[in-house]
């Protein structure tokens, strides 16, 4: 199956000086959820911003590699253009318009004119409310009064109305209670199953992400160090130990007790 979204050896440099990611390659197939895991500072969010075109605001730039979307190179295209093509980002923070009501939030996006997104089936408000019934009940409230979980739902819903082919989700579990995370992950799974969406899920919470994902990549220090199907990831001792906290090795339970080089050598 040809991948919907493909990164080839992407390199990103901040402030013309500091390399953040180097040689990151990954693929997202149609109708699949791909988890992108890694600790803080591994380059997950940078990767996501590079895909969605949001690097400029942070004074970063892509200096190597390319981003292919539906077989077209879209490296360095502006975010609004990517969103219209169907590559839609759900950002980590500041994702809802707080002084607009929920309904206004959902209607804020510019309706796509016939053209690039004409071929994709439209998403109606009814559909959105079907997936997010909570929002239907709160449609006249200001988005600033929503709870964290409801904001995340609103952000997903807004993204959904952009008729995405690939949803890029940054830290769905950011600051949310475990039960809420579970609900949201299930929702993302339903979006894949029922609407055929592909999702790139950037997550710290590996357990929650791998519960719905089809495959995953593990990043460390700006590189992809391990990848494969969920089964392969779950079977890997280091992933189990460092990201799921269920390691089997006696005598070292904590991340910090491991000498870095041991871990790195095994992954390379």
């Amino acid at each position: 199956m040809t991948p919907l979204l493909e990164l080839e050896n992407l390199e990103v440099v901040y402030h013309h000086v500091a390399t953040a990611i180097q040689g990151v390659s990954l693929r997202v197939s149609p109708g699949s959820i791909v988890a992108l895991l890694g600790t803080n500072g591994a380059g997950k969010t940078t990767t996501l911003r590079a895909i969605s075109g949001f690097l400029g605001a942070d004074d970063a730039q892509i200096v190597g590699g390319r981003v292919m979307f539906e077989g077209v190179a879209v490296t360095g295209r502006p975010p609004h253009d990517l969103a219209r093509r169907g590559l839609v980002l759900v950002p980590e923070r500041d994702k809802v318009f707080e002084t607009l009501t929920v309904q206004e939030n959902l209607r804020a996006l510019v309706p796509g004119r016939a053209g690039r997104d004409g071929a994709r089936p439209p998403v109606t408000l009814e559909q959105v409310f079907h997936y997010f019934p909570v929002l239907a009940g709160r449609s006249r409230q200001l988005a600033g009064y929503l709870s964290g979980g409801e904001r995340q739902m609103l952000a997903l819903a807004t993204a959904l109305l952009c008729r995405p082919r690939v949803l890029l989700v940054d830290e769905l579990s950011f600051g949310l209670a475990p039960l809420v995370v579970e609900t949201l992950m299930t929702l993302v799974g339903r979006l894949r199953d029922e609407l055929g969406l592909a999702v790139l899920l950037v997550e710290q919470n590996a357990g929650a992400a791998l519960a719905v994902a089809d495959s995953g990549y593990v990043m460390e220090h700006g590189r992809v160090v391990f990848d494969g199907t969920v089964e392969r990831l779950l079977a890997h001792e280091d992933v189990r130990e460092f990201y799921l906290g269920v390691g089997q090795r006696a005598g070292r339970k904590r991340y910090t007790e491991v000498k870095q080089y041991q871990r790195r050598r095994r992954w390379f």
Partner: protein
Amino acid sequence: MAFGGGYFKTTYAADLALVDTRLRRVTLGLLILALLGLPRFASSFVLDLVTQTALAAVGALALNLLTGLAGQISLGHAGFIAAGAFTTAILVENRVPSPLVALPAAALVGAALGVIVGIPALRLKGLYLALGTLALHHVVLYACGEFQNHWGANTGVSIPPPRLGPWVLKGTVAWYYTLTAIAALVLILCVNLQRSRAGRAWMAIRDREIAAESVGIDVARYKVLAFVWSSALTSVAGALFAYERAFVSVEAFGFFLAIEYIAMVIIGGLGSALGAVLGAAFVTLLPYGIDAGVASLRVPGGAEYYLFPLKFGAFGLLMAAFLVFEPQGLVGIWRRVRNWVALWPLRYRPLRSAS
């Protein structure tokens, strides 16, 4: 910028030193020698340009404290300069022409104005603050205009050259040395302010006010303090301006002056003392540069009349272009050069390795 090695400081004295490496010491020494020896080689026109730059640098450094470090935009800078200049003028009118009185008095007036503006400014942010400080500018200029109309001659007040005992400060060279030395002192003061508790508090407030408050920084106090430092220094710059021009008139302190100072700190690079000095030099010298450019075009007689408005256009255009293509300011260029040298032969700093 060094990574993986370099200079390590082993004593507190070394950590506090402003100029810490031999290369820097040598560079600074050469710069001082060059500035000291300049009157021997340069024409008085060049000296005058450096003097003006030094004077502008004092104001720009002061504004940089407020806008660059504390993150509070101020369109009232020309008002503070006018306050300093007119303090001097009022003292001169009352037969107290000594700079030993006028400069501290200007600083006090500036500091008082800083408190007056700073306290209401605590409640203002962004565009509202800009408008509030703009209002201050108009109030100060109105008061100065009233003074000028009632006590001074209608066109302005002449200021005698400053006199310290038997010595009279007169002539291009004397002014050059005086103002360059004062600018150097203010530069050291500003760099040290930036390295001190107050400077760190200002930068914290600029970056994230709530986080600053949560680590125990009294935001209100430090904001007012930023206004006080900035306006006091600016007023001193205004007093120096009055002495150097030997004439004070309200017309010199229009809104354009405030914009020029804002342009200096932005073009130089916000939050950097070096940037403020570079920006002051850039904005001061740019009109002369454009003049020289126009003169070298050698257009026939009448056309120069039309080139005159073009100069203002070119000034604005150059500034806009600068902001678009070099948002980090002149200091950004300097940093890039420094990084390039430090990283050569690499182009980018490599990925952090897990050593």
